């Protein structure tokens, strides 16, 4: 079996809290991504999606401690610390952040910011870099003449396009898009998603799409990983998760999405809130909100294969019929 392009193994992240204690934000996440593959990472706010994405590039704040491995072509990029990580950033894995509003430096033009990454990784210099920047901007649908504009002179959608152009500047193999459409209105959202779709196809990019928005995942991704309380509770091909979810949380998430809801069925909400992560969790973390909890759920379930490329962390799948 070939080595996956990007592999995350046993990733744990703890944040030191002010006033003592720590928050176990990511609790043993495993992911793998093949070249050109598109993975959706979904879950409620605070379930550790963004933390996982940032941890892959070693971008967490200083109060975070990380364990686990992040492999690119089988090489652990976390092992060597910040300095060893730097050459991989933007070249192997680039990231597009939520809210293009602040992700671009307000006092430098978008052109300067793209040129900067080209020059940093030795892709191009001077006039060549500016030409390349113009091409990149064109490829995301921004007229090349806008390179001299400052972020505040562009609309939200344009800024997000500029951020995407910047992420593509060094021809990364993996693009992480963290809530790329969240702050945008619906029409612009659709355009950005189409753009990401086209770019992944044209550039052969692998995509990790971090979002709480299942319809967005449905539009772009082949596979999906559902996170809850810092761990992956189910992963598999999107249509399998949709038709035969192996975890009640996945089923309820789909039922809670208006566009994907079962026919004319009313949109459901999931009562309750995810557990706090600053204290240990007994048993299945979803148990208090689950509609199918039973005796075995006092034990924490582990992520087990339930089908071809489909795994879920739920005791229902191993329940012996009485």
């Amino acid at each position, binding site marked *: 079996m070939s080595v996956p392009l990007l592999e995350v193994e046993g990733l744990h992240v703890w944040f030191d809290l002010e006033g003592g204690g720590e928050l176990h934000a990511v609790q043993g996440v495993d992911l793998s991504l093949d070249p050109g593959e598109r993975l959706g990472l979904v879950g409620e706010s605070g379930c550790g999606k963004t933390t996982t994405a940032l941890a892959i590039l070693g971008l967490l704040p200083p109060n975070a401690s990380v364990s686990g491995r992040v492999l690119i072509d089988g090489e652990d990029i976390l092992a060597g610390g910040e300095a060893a990580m730097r*050459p*991989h950033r933007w070249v192997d894995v680039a990231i597009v*952040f939520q809210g293009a509003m602040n*992700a*671009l*430096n*307000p006092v430098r033009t978008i052109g300067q910011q793209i040129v*900067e990454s080209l020059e*940093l990784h030795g892709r191009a210099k001077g006039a060549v870099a500016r030409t390349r920047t113009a091409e990149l901007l064109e490829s995301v649908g921004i007229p090349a003449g806008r390179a001299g504009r*400052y972020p505040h002179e562009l609309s939200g959608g344009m800024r997000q396009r500029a951020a995407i152009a910047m992420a593509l500047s060094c021809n990364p193999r993996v693009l992480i898009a963290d809530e790329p459409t969240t702050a945008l209105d619906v029409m612009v959202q659709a355009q950005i998603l189409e753009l990401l779709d086209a770019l992944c196809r044209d550039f052969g990019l692998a995509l990790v799409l971090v979002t709480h928005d299942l319809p967005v995942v449905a539009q772009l991704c082949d596979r999906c990983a559902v996170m809850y309380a810092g761990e992956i509770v189910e992963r598999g091909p999107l249509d399998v998760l949709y038709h035969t979810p192996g975890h009640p949380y996945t089923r309820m998430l789909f039922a809670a999405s208006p566009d994907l809801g079962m026919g004319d069925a009313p949109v459901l909400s999931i009562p309750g809130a995810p557990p706090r992560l600053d204290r240990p969790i007994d048993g299945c973390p979803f148990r208090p909100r689950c509609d199918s909890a039973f005796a075995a759920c006092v034990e924490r379930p582990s992520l087990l294969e339930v089908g071809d490329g489909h795994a879920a962390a739920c005791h229902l799948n191993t329940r012996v019929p009485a």
Partner: protein
Amino acid sequence: MRGTDYVLKRIAFAIVTVFVAVSINFVLFRLAPGTAVSNLSRVPHATQQLRHALEKQFGLDKSKGEQYVIFLKQLVHGNLGISYENEQPVATNLRIELINTLPMVTLGTVFSILIGTLTGVIAAWRRGTPTEAVTVSSALGFYSMPTHWLGLMLIIIFAGTLPTGGMTNEFLLNPGFWQHLKDLGSHVLLPSLTLGLVLYGEYTLIVRSAMLETLGEDYILTARAKGLKPWTIIRKHALRNAMLPITTLVALSLGYVVAGAILIETVFSWPGIGRAVYEAVLQRDYPMLQGAFLLLTISVVVCNLIADLLYFKLDPRITT
């Protein structure tokens, strides 16, 4: 075109500010108890005649309104009047003192800006570490020291190694150019160092908080994600944005460079503007005070104007 309007507006505003300040200065000194004449005629048995003669000589017998009009008229012609004290043109007095003050205060201010920015950036970048605690507490320590006390301490420490008073060694007769420069340089060190140490803490704190604010922004995360090195991130992304509040502070304090530092000039017997203002207040030397305050006003206003224009250059979001 973006900018022309903004610049014109700022300049007009600056001119109005100077005019208002000049008028307030005129009124202010005349409101203070005691008059120039009572001070000048403080010789025993000063006769009424002497008082009248003095009043007439300096035009103080005219009404306040007339004095004000004359003052403005002369000002337009660039005439700042004659000092009551040494009967020299005020402009001449001020020029000499300004030339004395500028190198000393400029050196101290530049020193404080450099040290303050450096320590502020370090404190922000090393947030929550002992490095931050040390830089911030030493900055605060110097900031809260009384200026004259710090000056005296430096004199105690460096007396014997460095000259502790005056601007030049008066016993150095007919020095050559380099010798004179070296002499000046050694005299300027202690007063400048005192000024720099007292002022830099303010910069440390402002730079630190401005840097902390920008370091928390999303575009810093983007810069890290791009693979930029920490120092490049600080220079090209964080400091560039943090420069906005810092510029204002720097420009404002550069305005006060001209005012000199009264306490420091007194402790180190530095014959500059600060000391001249202090003496003019004691003597009720209205023309001198008006001249000195005009100079101070103009320099503060001009520096503010520069800050505004720099702001405009640094922050592309300012359009009007």
